[in-house]
């Protein structure tokens, strides 16, 4: 099962065999527990529910405790589902450690991007804004025209305008696993990962990895 939950710790760099510096994001991954298996018969879809980060039992509601008692796992703060084909060897209550991945694996990392609040169109969509000079005033970060004149009479749906930005689910695809240390629950992937330090991350085998295509025989 190539899936785990973790927490973003931060970024640093490591050196490869050729002495090249590689930027990596360090993730505190696991220990996780399989809390429930979703099956076609009962739930209508296949998935593995995984829990992460042990907490004091008083932090959980009665319902949460009851749910966890079925798979007899410790009290956990986060529960997330991975849509995996349920393989036989996965059992409820099973521990998942960082060593489900190997160095060189391609993974997707899902996180919640940093919230930017109500952002203008320059930050949010990369619009160019207006000219700085030639007698312009108050137009430097303005969106410009948002549509046609009275012939059209309205603004198209989907017109990009200012609004809330960030704090959304973002997936970083095809990151290479550079370091795995199950003893320290450490995982490091190449490049950056969505979200702030301390944010919850879901790490799975990359959907578009060559390895996965090979497994499916494509």
């Amino acid at each position, binding site marked *: 099962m190539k899936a785990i939950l973790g927490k973003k*710790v*931060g*970024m*640093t*760099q*490591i*050196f490869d065999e*050729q*002495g090249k*510096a590689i930027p990596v994001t*360090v993730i*505190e991954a696991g220990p996780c527990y399989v809390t429930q298996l979703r099956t076609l018969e009962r739930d209508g879809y296949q998935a593995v529910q995984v829990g992460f980060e042990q907490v004091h039992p008083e932090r959980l509601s009665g319902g949460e405790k009851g749910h966890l008692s079925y798979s007899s796992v410790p009290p956990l703060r986060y529960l997330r589902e991975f849509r995996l084909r349920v393989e036989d060897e996965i059992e409820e209550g099973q521990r998942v450690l960082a060593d489900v991945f190997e160095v060189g694996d391609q993974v997707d990392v899902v996180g919640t991007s940093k919230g930017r609040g109500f952002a203008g169109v320059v930050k949010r969509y990369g619009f160019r804004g207006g000219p700085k000079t030639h007698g312009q005033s108050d137009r430097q970060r303005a969106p410009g025209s948002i549509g046609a004149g009275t012939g059209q009479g309205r603004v198209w749906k989907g017109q990009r305008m200012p609004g809330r930005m960030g704090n959304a689910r973002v997936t970083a695809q095809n990151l290479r696993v550079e*370091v795995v240390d199950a003893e*320290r*629950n*450490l995982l*490091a992937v190449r490049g950056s990962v969505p979200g702030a330090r301390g944010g919850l991350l879901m790490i799975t085998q990359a959907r578009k990895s060559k390895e996965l295509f090979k497994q499916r025989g494509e």
Partner: protein
Amino acid sequence: MNLIESLERQLEPNPNIPDLHPGDTVNVHARIIEGEKERVQVFKGTIIRMRGKGAGANFTVRRIASHGIGVERTFLLHSPRLEKVQVVRQARVRRAQLYYLRERRGKRARLREKRT
């Protein structure tokens, strides 16, 4: 101790790199890859700054190349490509970044030797 520190602690200090300071004149032996071949290139100059900590720590060496052209090169302190660093001379300097050397040439760019 967080996990980044624990990862960076694995970096063993290179035994061939002594303590470096701004103002030091050094010979930096860096391994470079030319096509297929690998060889060691020596870069000689003055350290004008030490920067960063942990895995990203680096230092910049300035030397005057031919025709009085200043050349600066920055090396990663923990890079395995650094063969060794020799300190040739230590100077007494009064700041951490010796950027003022960039505006000086010849005699005015001299540094006072450190007395021990």
